[in-house]
């Protein structure tokens, strides 16, 4: 214990204690040396990696998305630059303070900013806080950036549709990749925040248009400020698409529908090129390609007109009398009827205890196939339907592409229904009733089709049974090689029918326009063949058309082709709740066909007519 001591012994003791201090010193220094050996030699490579990661950030260089042109090179979708603000979480000192600063600067809800920062993922991956910033906001953030470590402004390319609503359904829109999409293998080269096509051609041709991201290594200091950077890999711009659409025709088709709901599809029968595909109401893909608030999104989704629905490929309607075209082919080919044999139409067809009525009270008298098509005699088709049976009818319907997807390059195409007893048993778990065959014969009952299918059916007839898959993309411009790759038309087989059959049908369809139910489609510049149709919406109809509330009125159909002698265009028009096809739909088809004839005429062509569209190539900005 502590005790008294004497200076002399103390002094002697001091030497011993100093010796102990030396030993202790050596031991402690030895420990330090061991520790440093451990850090620098044993764990050196590990810390070397850490220090490399500390200072280098891999920044992705987003590729420019491929552009979309119409068949004549008119620009339909391009990219414009816009400013986005990102936050690199690793460099953020105080997240709450930053959330406060950013939400004040940008006028955003702090909760939203917090949510955006909280997105899962690597700390080294920047989180996007806001895109499409105004230049003013971008400048404001940039000027305060030094006070907000981790905040970055980036110039990005933003998808732009110069035509606004034009062709919105087939072009589609783009949007940030969703969490579900990120899980899928087809998106494995993408990352959170990547922009991908979410609808239309943008979606189905996403792989072509998205390009390949490049990479830049940026050396940063502890505040996230860039010290130097080197491009490791240049981004590869996506490929450009040349559509089969003629933008002028497309705009006309949309204008023809105007405020009405409906769809118009125009095809080139000789190769399946879709010349126009209009669906109304439409949406603005510029708006959809932005980040929508959930309120905006709900508004669009709950809109009664369902603007996001592409009625041309997704709308399924009973074909009505337009269905008589494939039925007529079936009747001749199965020899159920000869061209000259007749049916006596008295205005109704008795089957069992039920009378199936003709649309014309009093009937059409004795009609052959030609007459039956020209005047759209229902009794004639009740009769042949009854004789052929539903399975034969369905077989021919399927040959014409009904009840199955056309294979057009659009997501979520619907197939319609070509009913058979087997189908009914499977889907409805009920057996087929004989009367249903009779309804089906005039395109009512269970039969549903899409306007695209009907246009394709019309094109097949116009082309004497030779069928091409409807297509939207004519050529792909490969940005890597600079090659413009023309895509060949895709044959879908040929209807096994005699040429004579098509001649008879086409002559009848020509007479439908000249003296039948569709005289309002009669053109002074081109011969048009067509067939009207009325798709029943409500089963019971009483009183005149005008007295029925609009949403219960029938849909108007008109399918047509022209010129009759050597068809260059096939059209299907569906106008929802517009009543009879001859009155509502036929004039639209006529106008479209005439416009196309003018466009393709060898005479000098006026190329103007599309306001707000430019044929300038605006691709330059990202490549420079």
């Amino acid at each position: 214990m502590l005790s008294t001591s004497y200076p002399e012994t103390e002094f002697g003791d001091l030497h011993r204690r100093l010796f102990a201090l030396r030993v202790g010193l050596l031991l402690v220094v030895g420990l330090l040396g061991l520790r440093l050996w451990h850090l620098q030699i044993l764990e050196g490579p590990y810390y070397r990696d850490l220090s490399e990661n500390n200072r280098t950030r891999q920044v992705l260089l987003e590729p420019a998305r491929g552009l979309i042109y119409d068949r004549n090179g008119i620009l339909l979708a391009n990219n414009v630059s816009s400013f986005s603000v990102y936050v690199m979480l690793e460099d953020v000192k105080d997240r709450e303070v930053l959330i406060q600063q950013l939400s004040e600067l940008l006028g955003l809800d702090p909760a939203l900013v917090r949510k955006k920062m909280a997105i899962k993922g690597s700390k080294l991956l920047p989180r996007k806080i806001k895109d499409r910033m105004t230049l003013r906001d971008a400048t404001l953030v940039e000027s305060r950036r030094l006070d907000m470590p981790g905040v970055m402004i980036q110039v990005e390319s933003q998808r732009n549709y110069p035509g606004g609503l034009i062709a919105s359904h087939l072009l589609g829109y783009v949007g940030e990749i969703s969490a579900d999409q990120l899980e899928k293998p087809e998106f494995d080269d993408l990352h959170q925040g990547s922009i991908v096509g979410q609808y239309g051609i943008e979606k189905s041709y996403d792989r072509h248009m998205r390009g390949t991201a490049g990479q830049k290594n940026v050396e940063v200091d502890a505040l996230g400020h860039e010290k130097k950077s080197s491009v490791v890999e240049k981004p590869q711009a996506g490929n450009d698409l040349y559509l089969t659409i003629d933008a002028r025709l497309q705009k006309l088709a949309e204008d023809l529908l105007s405020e009405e709901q409906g769809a118009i599809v125009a095809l080139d029968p000789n190769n399946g090129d879709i010349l126009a595909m209009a669906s109304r109401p439409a949406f603005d893909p510029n708006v959809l390609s932005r980040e929508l608030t959930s309120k905006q999104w709900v508004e669009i989704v709950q809109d009664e007109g369902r603007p996001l629905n592409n009625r041309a490929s997704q709308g399924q309607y009973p074909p009505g009398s337009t269905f008589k075209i494939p039925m007529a082919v079936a009747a001749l080919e199965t020899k159920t009827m000869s061209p000259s044999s007749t049916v006596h139409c008295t205005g109704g067809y008795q089957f069992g205890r039920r009378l199936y009525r003709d649309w014309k009270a009093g009937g059409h008298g004795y009609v052959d196939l030609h007459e039956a098509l020209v005047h759209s005699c229902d009794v004639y088709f009740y009769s042949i339907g009854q004789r052929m049976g539903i399975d034969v009818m369905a077989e021919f319907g399927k040959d014409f592409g009904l009840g199955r997807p056309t294979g057009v390059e659009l997501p979520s195409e619907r197939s319609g229904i070509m009913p058979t007893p087997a189908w009914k048993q499977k889907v409805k778990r009920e057996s087929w009733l004989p009367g249903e065959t009779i309804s089906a014969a005039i395109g009512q009952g269970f039969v549903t089709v899409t306007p695209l299918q009907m246009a394709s059916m019309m094109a097949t007839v116009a082309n004497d049974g030779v069928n091409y898959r409807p297509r939207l993309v004519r050529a792909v411009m490969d940005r890597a090689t600079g090659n413009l790759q023309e895509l060949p038309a895709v044959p879908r087989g040929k209807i096994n029918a005699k040429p004579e059959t098509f001649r008879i049908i086409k002559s009848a369809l020509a007479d439908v326009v000249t003296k039948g139910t569709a005289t309002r489609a009669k053109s002074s510049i081109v011969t048009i063949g067509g067939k009207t149709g009325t798709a029943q919406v409500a089963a019971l109809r009483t009183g005149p058309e005008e007295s029925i509330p609009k949403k219960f009125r029938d849909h108007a159909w008109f399918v047509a082709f022209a010129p009759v002698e050597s068809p260059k265009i096939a059209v299907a028009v569906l106008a929802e709740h517009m009543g009879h096809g001859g009155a509502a739909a036929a004039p639209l088809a006529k106008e479209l066909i005439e416009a196309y004839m003018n466009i393709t005429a060898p005479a000098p062509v006026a190329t103007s007519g599309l306001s707000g569209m430019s044929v300038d190539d605006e691709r330059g900005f990202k490549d420079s």
Partner: protein
Amino acid sequence: MIDRLTERRGLDGFDIRYVGLMLAILAIGVLSIYSVTQGQQSGNTPYYLKQLMWIGLGAAAFLIMWAADYHDLARFAYPAYAFILLMLVFVLFEGRTSKGAQRWIAMGPFSFQPSEFAKLILVLVLAHYYSKAPRVGWLQRVIVPGLLVLPGLLLILKQPDLGSGLSFVAVYAAMLLMVGVRSQAIGFILLFGIMLFPFAWEGVWGSLHDYQRQRIMAFVDPGYDPGGKGYHALQSKIAIGSGELLGKGLYGGTQSQLKFLPEGHTDFVFAVFAEEWGFLGVMVLLGLFVGLIWLSLEIASKAKDQLGALLAAGIVAMLCFCVVVNIGMTAGMFPIVGIPLPLVSYGGSATIMTMASLGLLLNVKRKRLSLFY
């Protein structure tokens, strides 16, 4: 041989090896400061030039302390201590605040840190106290010197300056071990305790949760590590470890050059050096320190009188403490307390004070020689 040469010139006790070691360490410091503060300036002068200036002033202090008679210096110990206590009080009211602590007194373009000088004066005070007529009983041997230490310690902790406070305690503890406490057993237990501390630390400190550590650290030293979460410690470990065997070369230290490592030119200068010069460089630096301390211990053990021995022992203990704790904390063995690496870290007060202390230490040797001739 060298001794004889210097003796002939009247420079008795001027140990050229000792001065050479000191200058070598100082040179390493200037080099590291030069590397890490490229492009940065303190005022209009680059840091390394200012450090060279401090070294110039330190050299003057070294020579004065070496030339004067340490018995005379010891006589002024109490007045000097009183003066420095006044300065420490003054600093609390009028001091310049930096990084949450009020430690500096502004003197024109420079600022001066009284707590640094207080350490040296404490050594003088305690050596003077113990060297006087026999101190008997544990009141005189432990409590009274403790009371001498206490006001300075409290004033320093109030700033707060945990690092200087610990140095203060270290000087007191070293003096107790040398002369204050009789029992050798206690001395050795303490010694072993210090030696085992790093391992015990890993066990105890390492088992705490982050927030517990932060609370403890916030309690003892609120100004330090504002970002929390062990950022400094981690960056320092990365810097040292990534240096590997040969280092990244001058200016090559990405941790320090890109400012991931905070306080690169002051408290964490060792990590800068370790990153740029690797394990080999670090061994050289450690070797220089060991050499310097070894020579100092030799001086202490060969001191002619008790005052000299105590002065030398106190200074060497202070030096050892700072070197070990600084390297230990940058290497992640100790918690981070703000103790600069003597002779290497940037800083006027610390550099001048350390060089003055070494001058005083060499002074002890000189007096021994002068008595023989």
